[in-house]
């Protein structure tokens, strides 16, 4: 049995206070072993984005535990959360979230800058990952000069440049056409094989889920089995 990279125990997340409290996660238990690719599916409003935000240390649970690499990260300060995001987690987003005024090289270097890496070192490391995602010829381009697939590759290079243990992807192919989406998924698969990192992919897309070792379905703030989840999509 592999070590659990991610362990979520009895997690509750509520928004608002008092009578206006809205529960979004109503007691979620999830364990993800190191090196596993997990797809997180469910209808909108099911709580999967909230769960992803908590997994990404962008948000904190109201109750329950979140062990990341064996360490409880559910009660960290904002500064500590930032440290975990910087060194332990990588993010890719549906809409890429690249810095529009910065070049490919600069975009990929951003996490290294915040990690305090010197400029020469930053450029060398960023170049390595840019080459790996096949954009060596595009380092001085800005995101607006790139196709959607290329932008997501830049985002992937940026997510991996600090050598995280966990990659969190929010609809990574949601803004891409099918062939491009499949290319991106293949790249993620290859990178998984090379690095053995744990991946959590939030998606609506069956192609994405097919890449995963396992799919977790969510509905109304609970993790449910496949049939219950599908009941909402007749």
């Amino acid at each position, binding site marked *: 049995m592999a070590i659990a990279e991610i362990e979520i125990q009895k997690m509750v997340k509520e928004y608002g206070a008092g009578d206006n409290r809205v529960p979004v996660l109503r007691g979620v238990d999830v364990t993800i072993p190191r090196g596993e690719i997990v797809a997180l599916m469910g209808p909108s409003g099911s709580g999967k984005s909230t769960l992803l935000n908590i997994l990404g240390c962008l948000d904190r649970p109201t109750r329950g535990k979140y062990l990341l690499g064996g360490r409880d990260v559910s009660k960290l300060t904002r*500064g500590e959360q930032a440290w975990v995001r910087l060194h332990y987690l990588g*993010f890719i987003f549906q809409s890429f979230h690249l810095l529009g005024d910065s070049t490919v090289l600069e975009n990929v270097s951003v996490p290294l800058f915040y990690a305090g890496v010197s400029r020469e070192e930053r450029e060398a490391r960023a170049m390595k990952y840019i080459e790996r995602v096949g954009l060596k010829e595009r380092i001085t381009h800005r995101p607006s000069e790139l196709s959607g697939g290329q932008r997501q590759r830049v985002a992937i290079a940026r997510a991996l440049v600090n050598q995280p243990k966990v990659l969190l992807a929010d609809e990574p192919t949601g803004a891409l056409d099918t062939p491009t989406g499949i290319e991106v998924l293949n790249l993620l698969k290859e990178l998984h094989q090379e690095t053995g990192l744990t991946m959590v992919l939030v998606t609506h897309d069956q192609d994405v889920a097919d890449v995963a070792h396992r799919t977790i379905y969510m509905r109304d703030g609970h993790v449910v089995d496949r049939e219950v989840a599908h009941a909402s999509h007749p």
Partner: protein
Amino acid sequence: MRLIPDSVRMALQAPMRNPGRSALTALGLAIGVSAFIAMVSFGRGARGSVVSQFETLGSNMLRIKKQTAAGEVQALPLTHADSDALIHESTTLSAVVPRIDRMFDISYQGRHARTVVRATTPDFTKVRDEKISRGGSFYERDERERAKVCILGATPAQTLFPTGSDPLGAVVTIGGTLPCRVIGVFAQQGAAISGSDLDDRVVMPLSTFENALGAVDGFFSIEVRPRQPDQHWAASQEIHRILRRVRHVREGAGDNYRIESPDEVTKVAEQIGGILTGLLAGIAGVSLLVGGIGIMNIQLMSVAERTHEIGVRAALGASPDQILRQFLAEALALACIGVGAGVGVGVAVSELVGRQMGWAHATQPDVVIFSAAFGVVVGTVFGYIPAKRAADLDPIEALRRE
């Protein structure tokens, strides 16, 4: 590029993206800093020139003027009786110089100048720092013989002798009746801070003046020089003793004259100059604050516009501290640009004006250093509020804002 540290490059990146706006922002602080430097320099320069004018009176002198005593309608004029008593009886005074000032027309070969004619005794050079650039002064003998001689100030000299012809030896007519030979020309002194022209005068022997033009109302003043610079008090006491007797001031009654010392005048001038400087500095300080608020505004706007970028950076692992520092550094960069420009303009303006007005040391380093430091501090303090706002942004919320 590699010579510039990362932090500086980062701090300049965002302002450089919108150079026009950044320049306008920095302009506010630049105006504040330059105004501060110029204003304080003007204030100090003005004070300096006021003080130095009083100092040319000769710091070691006292001036006696008539004064209306309590219960009297008219002031008793100062006369030869007063000055003679001082000359003969005093032991503490080395020079006693009566003086009459009156406006007259002076003419020379059809040219006219209206100027102050100052009638005084040859000792006037002992109480005042008077420099005669050409020719010489008059002496006891001239005074005794009522010699018709005069010394021209630079202004009437230029008016009456515009072609550069030599005034020395020329005979000018004073008040239409009195011909006087020009025996000297005073060195140029420039304008007083009040705007009056210190060079607009003619000096001549008192006896000549009294004989030819008449002394209607006594002397304008009697200026005296104590033998020792530290004898002002003793000299004053002696003057009081002599003048109260000569001028018939009864026991217990108020003086019908007064003694002014340039020390006091200088002190007042210093005070006025200080108030002036403070006032100007205050106004300039306000403009500095306004410049700081400009930086705050632009940075608040920048934070609002770049909310998404901040969200991305935060999501990627930038800590609130790092984001705070980044925006603070941007505000600081803007402040430094503004302060740099302001120092340049401020020093240039005060040097230029200082040169025009003939002030020594128009810009002082302490003013420049203070205003630069103040500008940077203002920029940083006002930059903190937007920076804190950026650091406090919720990354999830910020990411949603495109």
